[in-house]
């Protein structure tokens, strides 16, 4: 076989799907490889990425497997819609989601073994500690002016979180909208 597989994803077991890979920078090596996803059918698919290193020219070729359209379960879409407060249940919306996920999966290609993740560009800065003295507050009037609804120096809010209508109800509401 004229290629080596570098495992990037621990779930990746063996190639199953056939794909043609475009040639490397120095010569055209087109490789056929089968890739398999390890998620059960119907579940949201994690796209397996791997880097194939051509044994002839040792140049990496990125491969993204696509075994079919992503099947995102309706419950998950519903949950995402609640969290994002965005309706995207159309074919277009779901297609967009799928593309976004595949795009993000390219992160798997990078070898991060043994490297601490960076979660703040401030990680090398010293965290400033403030002394425990009163320096602010006492501006109720200013703050309350920002709110349309106030009652005796309290902000007014609805009685609780207004729940999103259930899926079926929302479909009915959206039926006549442009979406």
């Amino acid at each position, binding site marked *: 076989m004229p290629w080596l597989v570098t495992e990037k994803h621990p779930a990746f077991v063996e190639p199953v799907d056939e794909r043609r890979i475009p040639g490397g920078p120095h010569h055209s090596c087109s490789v056929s490889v089968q890739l398999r996803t390890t998620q059960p059918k119907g579940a949201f698919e994690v796209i397996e990425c791997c880097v194939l290193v051509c044994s002839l020219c040792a140049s990496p070729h990125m491969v993204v497997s696509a075994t079919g359209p992503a099947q995102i379960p309706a419950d998950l879409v519903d949950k995402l819609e609640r969290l994002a407060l965005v309706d995207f249940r159309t074919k277009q919306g779901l297609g967009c989601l799928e593309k976004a996920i595949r795009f993000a999966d390219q992160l798997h290609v990078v070898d991060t073994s043994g490297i601490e993740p960076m979660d*703040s560009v401030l990680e090398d800065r010293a965290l400033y500690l403030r002394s425990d003295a009163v320096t602010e507050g006492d501006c*109720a009037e200013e703050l309350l002016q920002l709110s349309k609804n106030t009652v005796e*120096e309290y902000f007014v*809010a*609805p*009685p609780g979180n207004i729940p999103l209508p259930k899926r079926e109800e929302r479909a009915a509401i959206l039926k006549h909208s442009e979406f």
Partner: protein
Amino acid sequence: MIPCAPQQLVGVVGLEIHAQINSKTKLFSGSQVRFSDPPNSLVSFFDGSLPGTLPVLNRRCVEAAVMTALALNCTINRKSLFDRKHYFYADLPAGYQITQQRRPIAVDGILTYSLLGGKKRNQVIRKTANITQIQLEQDSGKSLHDDVRSQTLIDLNRAGVGLMELVMEPDMSCGEEAAAAVRELQLILQALGTCQGNMSEGQLRVDANVSVHTPGEPLGTRTEVKNINSTRYLARAIDYEIQRQIKVLQRGGKVQNETRAYDSKSGETIPMRDKEGLQDYRFMPEPNLPPLIVYEENASLPTGIDACQAVVVQQIREGLPELPGVKRDRLVQTYGILPEHSFTLVNEDGLVEYFEAVLKATKKEPRKVIGWVTNELLGHLKQQDMSVSQSPVSPPALAELLELQESGHISSSVAKQVFQEMWRSSGSTASKIIQEQDLGLVSDTAQLHSICQKVVDSHPDEVDAIRNGNKKVLNKLMGLVQKETKGRADPVLVREILQEKTS
């Protein structure tokens, strides 16, 4: 569904405790921490989550967390991180709470507490509960629900106040243990000064995770019980919930994983409003805060660092005050009192100080004084639901009473009577009452002789019995003499005289 045998199921209890940090200002802003102020008057722009504001960590809160962690034998994480926990609610203006989910400031601690157990409830039983972690986080504002106008009024004075969340392992099995553990934690936090620990004022909030299972088998589904504002209610709520779950399983049902509120009026737990299924908090690192570093000792400080920018664990460790456990042992050592007495003393606010004040003013042995403090004084206080500071009998007044008893002016039973009288008429001294009511011990031998003679003369049968060897009958005669003297006769003298007369 096979219902479970009732004897086999036991309760499993884990506590989640939020302790409000006793600091002048909030965790990430310089607005004041105070209670009962006009609504929204202690709110900075950051607390109101106005755009363009950033969190600035309060050093005092870090010190409080380290102190508490050390007192609870935790491992301090040299480097800890801040995260955002997202959820929508009107009293959380930013839409997220800054907390420490990934790497909290301290982990792996132990809370040692004691119960008074045994048949007579006078055995001190030591127990431990493991602490998973301690983390710093923000408090939310307060919501006042106005059901009439279908609206909620929001006061952000509390929003951003520093909290220490203590997560405990499910090591307890019943309400009594949980209440004792929380009581001990209150005493520790109060001794440290890191939290005032008042449950009814929300300074210490306890949520209980309760489940039941058969020992040896996997843990059952748990419910979270909230809205508990005293240690007494905590014990009741937990015990009710354990029983409720057992009954559910006995009926062949399943325990739901839900949040329940304790209703103190009915003593029951009721399901809270559904939180729309399992919350997804979308934890993410707080991008505006670098990691929090605490240093072990002065030697490990980086060069050139400003002292006020460094929290040094060793310094804090050296500055720790005397913890309740140590105090109890010291009292036993110093005064020779029993552990259970020491336990009672430390458990009650101000009682140790009261006890020591009495000791200063009397020559009586501590072991003889302790009973008066833990029984007479405390008993009366509990009866009227009063605190030590409200006692109508002051330490010097009690000391005077004890001196009078010790020096033989009054008998023990009269002393108790006098105490009652002192309690009722606060301000009146022992000597005054004794004089007014003529309760002084009668030691006038002539008077005693005549009374004893009278009794002896009127009870010839008893006298014969004594002369024939039945010495116990003497007690009856003594009782009669005491009745004559209204308990004011010196018992030692009476016995001597009677023995003389009946020999």
